[in-house]
Each structure stands twice: as structure tokens, then as C-alpha cells.
């Protein structure tokens, strides 16, 4: 399932996938895979993404 909330939060911050990837220390392909729902990140990476996008875990990865 696509993670549109993360994509929207990233766009709101005006970050590209590459910029977000550089901030959290992963590849752009990993960010892309998370947004497309192809990869489930660990809680450690989820927290790093939340911190980078100024969002809570629930806001980005919580179920609707």
C-alpha cells in the first residue's frame, strides 16, 4: 500500500527523495520503495523520517 502521507509530508517540506534520503542516511531508492509501499522500514528509520519531516509516527505511518 502506497504511503501517500509520507510523500505529502515530504512535498510540504519541499524535499526531494534524494534530499530526504541524505538527511536520514539511506539511498533514494529506499525512500522511493517506502513511498510506493514496496518496503516496510524499521522503527529506527521511521523515527528518523518523522524527525526529518517534523511529523509523528502516527501521522506518517499510522493506519487511516
Amino acid at each position, binding site marked *: 500500500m502506497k504511503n501517500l502521507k509520507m510523500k505529502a509530508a515530504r512535498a510540504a517540506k519541499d524535499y*526531494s*527523495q*534524494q534530499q530526504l*534520503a*541524505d538527511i536520514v*542516511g*539511506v*539511498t*533514494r*531508492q*529506499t525512500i*522511493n*520503495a517506502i*513511498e*510506493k509501499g514496496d*518496503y516496510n*522500514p*524499521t522503527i*529506527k*528509520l521511521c523515527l528518523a523520517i518523522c524527525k526529518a519531516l517534523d511529523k509523528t509516527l502516527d501521522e506518517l505511518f499510522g493506519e487511516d
Partner: protein
Amino acid sequence: MEDALIIAGSMAAAFVVAMIFNIAGRKTGRQMDRQFDERQIIARNKAYMTGFFVVLLLMMADILLKMTGNAFYMDPLGELSAVLISIGVFAVLAIWNDAFLIPTQKPGLLILLYCVVTIERMIRFLFSLKNGECFSDGRLTLSCINGVAALIFFAVFVSFLIKQHSSGSED
């Protein structure tokens, strides 16, 4: 026999160098899980596993061919080809899943390197073929390993090119 000694010596030297780098990396805190991201580590593990099963299957096929007397190659071409093919399978799978390079690494120089090595191995193989070193008693000799290596490096090179082309822009 001389060829086998050279190959065994080269492999032992490569193993020692790899161990030295591994130990040096640990001492300086540069561990693999700090270089590759978590998705890449999972993808690499799957690629390692596939490569391992490929080498097992090829070794079993090699043993079966020898037992039935149908081996169309001389020792140690079969074993070395199996190892090279499994490394190639690992590399192609890792590249395909964007797990071959660390996040900060740029592939440009590596692509060029694989291209050069492919050409160099292919030239060596063609020279061996021209000089009639590839066949003896109706069987393939160890000189054919250059052809196998050329194919593996070519596969890696092509995988790199395709991935570079397909993942150049953001979705």
C-alpha cells in the same frame, strides 16, 4: 597443475587482502551495516543466499557430470565457473535491487571498470581460442575461464547500465 597453483595462490591472496580490510574496517568502526542502509542489507542477504544456492546447484551438477563421465571440461574449470557464476548472480541481484553501492558511492567509475575488465577478459579468451588453447582431448580447458569471466562481467556491466538508465529520475 601450474595453472591450478596460480589460481589457488591468487584466491588465497585475495582472501587475505579481504580479511585485512575487514579487520581494519572493524578497528576503525566502518562496519558494513553502517555503510549500506537497512533495505540494502536485506536485499544483499537475499542475493547472497541465491548466489549460495546457485553455487551449490552448479557444484552438484559438476559432480554428477564427472560421476557419469559426461564432463565436457577439464578440472578445475567446472568449480571455478560455478564460483564465478554465483558471484555474478549475487552482483546482478544486488545491482537490480539497488543494493550494490553504498548511498554515497557513485557508479560512474565502476561501470567504466566493469566495461574495461569485460573487454580485457574477452580479448584474452579470443586469443586463447585463436591459439587453440581452449580445447584439449575434445574437452574445454581452464583457458575458457576468461570467457566465463567476460560473460559475468558483461552481465554486471549491463545490469549497471540498465539500472542507471531506469532509476535516473525520481518517481
